[in-house]
């Protein structure tokens, strides 16, 4: 095991729980991850000792809160190798993507232009672009997902060859297939064709080293709650673009000066942070990335890869089970979608829950991808640092018993 899992598990209070008389097996970290004590305590300490709002107070609490908040921003930005000034706190990854769609998209996309996404996107990286295209008269296009669960670079090139693609938005890691997309290559090709790139990194940052300097995308969105932190999101953007863009939300904190008829904007990143921030959440996320850094993201990735490989080996022991996504664990993250013939994913999840095995069932906010796969829904197991091989064993056992209940 790449990570000393026993020590790690003791850091997560919720793992001490029993449900229906069974020790908890949490396999839904791709939806939202559990929190280590370090995160819970950092937030509790802030609320107990230093709470105040940021960038306002002349008093000590205001100073402490601002230092903790901006300190968290600096460490979070360093964690993904990006400039903190160009790292904006949002509510979540969805809001980060919407920020780009509104502030950059409304100014830079028009009739006849094309907005390109892929068939493996989460709804949060589909619907903002549908809205943008409806408003601007642009055309929404998709790069298809092949049988291997991967994107075709040749197809990408042929779409980009139209010369009309203004923006290409894609997932770093698929939340359904687990596919790790070749993001540097995708960015390079899109940029060569004159398209701005937006990456949905919600499934990547929590489980693998992410170097935004090397990826070099124009915008990169992710969220803290999948990365062992609380629910607060991040948008990292290229400075020239962020400077040119109009604000997303108007209000307090994002202004420099407000006249009766018009206003001027605060500097980056605050120009895009209207209203009071989720301060404790930012500080909690700072603690989460400190925790992940202490393990090391290379070790986290090795752990995820090893568990994924083990699950890919064991799950086919369940009769009638179909796996989705790339078969090579080097090409996928710690999320595995599957179905079982004769059982709907809802029923699979319900019966797993009887044994305290938490798996997700449904369309995973990726309905266009479900249609590509020819299914209405899948069951999904996903891993984080606190999962162990025994969790996969418990899942396989639970699936076997679920089949028995269904008389399969």
């Amino acid at each position: 095991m790449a990570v000393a899992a026993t020590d790690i598990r003791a850091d997560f209070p919720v793992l001490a729980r029993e449900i229906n008389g069974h020790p908890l097996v949490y396999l839904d970290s791709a939806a939202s991850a559990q929190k280590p004590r370090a995160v819970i305590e950092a937030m509790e300490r802030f609320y107990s000792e230093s709470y105040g709002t940021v960038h306002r107070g002349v008093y000590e609490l205001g100073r402490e809160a601002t230092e903790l908040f901006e300190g968290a921003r600096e460490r979070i930005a360093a964690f993904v190798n990006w400039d903190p000034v160009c790292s904006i706190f949002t509510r979540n990854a969805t809001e980060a993507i919407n920020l780009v769609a509104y502030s950059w998209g409304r100014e830079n996309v028009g009739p006849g232009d094309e907005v390109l996404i892929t068939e493996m996107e989460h709804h949060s990286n589909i619907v903002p672009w549908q809205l943008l295209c409806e408003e601007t008269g642009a055309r929404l296009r998709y790069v298809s997902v092949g049988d291997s669960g991967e994107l075709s670079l040749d197809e990408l090139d042929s779409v980009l060859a139209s010369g009309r693609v203004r923006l290409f938005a894609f997932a770093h890691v698929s939340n359904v297939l687990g596919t790790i997309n070749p993001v540097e290559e995708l960015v390079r090709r899109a940029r060569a064709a004159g398209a701005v790139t937006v990456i949905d990194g919600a499934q990547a940052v929590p489980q693998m080293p992410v170097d935004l300097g090397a990826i070099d995308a124009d915008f990169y969105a992710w969220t803290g709650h999948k990365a062992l932190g609380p629910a607060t999101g991040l948008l990292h953007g290229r400075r020239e673009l962020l400077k040119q863009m109009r604000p997303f939300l108007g209000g307090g904190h994002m202004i420099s000066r407000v006249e009766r008829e018009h206003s001027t904007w605060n500097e980056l990143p605050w120009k895009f942070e209207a209203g009071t921030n989720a301060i404790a959440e930012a500080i909690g996320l700072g603690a989460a990335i400190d925790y992940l850094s202490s393990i090391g993201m290379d070790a986290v990735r090795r752990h995820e890869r090893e568990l994924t490989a083990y699950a890919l080996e064991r799950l086919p022991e369940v009769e009638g089970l179909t796996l989705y996504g790339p078969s090579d664990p080097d090409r996928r993250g710690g999320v595995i979608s599957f179905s079982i013939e004769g059982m709907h994913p809802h029923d699979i999840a319900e019966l797993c829950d009887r044994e305290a095995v938490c798996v997700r069932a449904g369309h995973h906010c990726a309905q266009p991808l479900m249609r590509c796969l020819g299914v209405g829904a899948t069951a999904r197991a996903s891993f984080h640092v606190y999962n162990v091989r025994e969790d996969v064993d418990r899942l396989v056992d639970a699936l076997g018993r679920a089949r028995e209940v269904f008389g399969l």
Partner: protein
Amino acid sequence: MDALYRDYILDHYKNPRNFGELDPHDLEFHDHNPLCGDELGVHIVVEDGRVADLRFHGQGCAISQAAASITSDELIGLPVSEVPELDADWVIDQLGIEISPTRRKCALLGLKVMRGATTGDPSWPE
């Protein structure tokens, strides 16, 4: 025996009654459960103001399919005007199992489309 997946529930899931399509038909409706993407459609033939025949189609979990199957049997022969009066309690009573809040919409999708076919109203039964 399992408290939720009782033999008759699984029987209706595996061998749904009145499953398929009816052409021609007088009434139809199609809808889905936005939480899980399950889809269900219904075709109804009306004679003398009553549901003379009915078929439902689509895909879903054991609870949604069994609920649609069990209630479809009850609907045949009923005056069309009485279908909108059927409510959530009626469905759950017909199912004969306890339905947790997370599975409530699964159980109600069938009645939702059957009522929708008679009224055009897509709201969830209460």
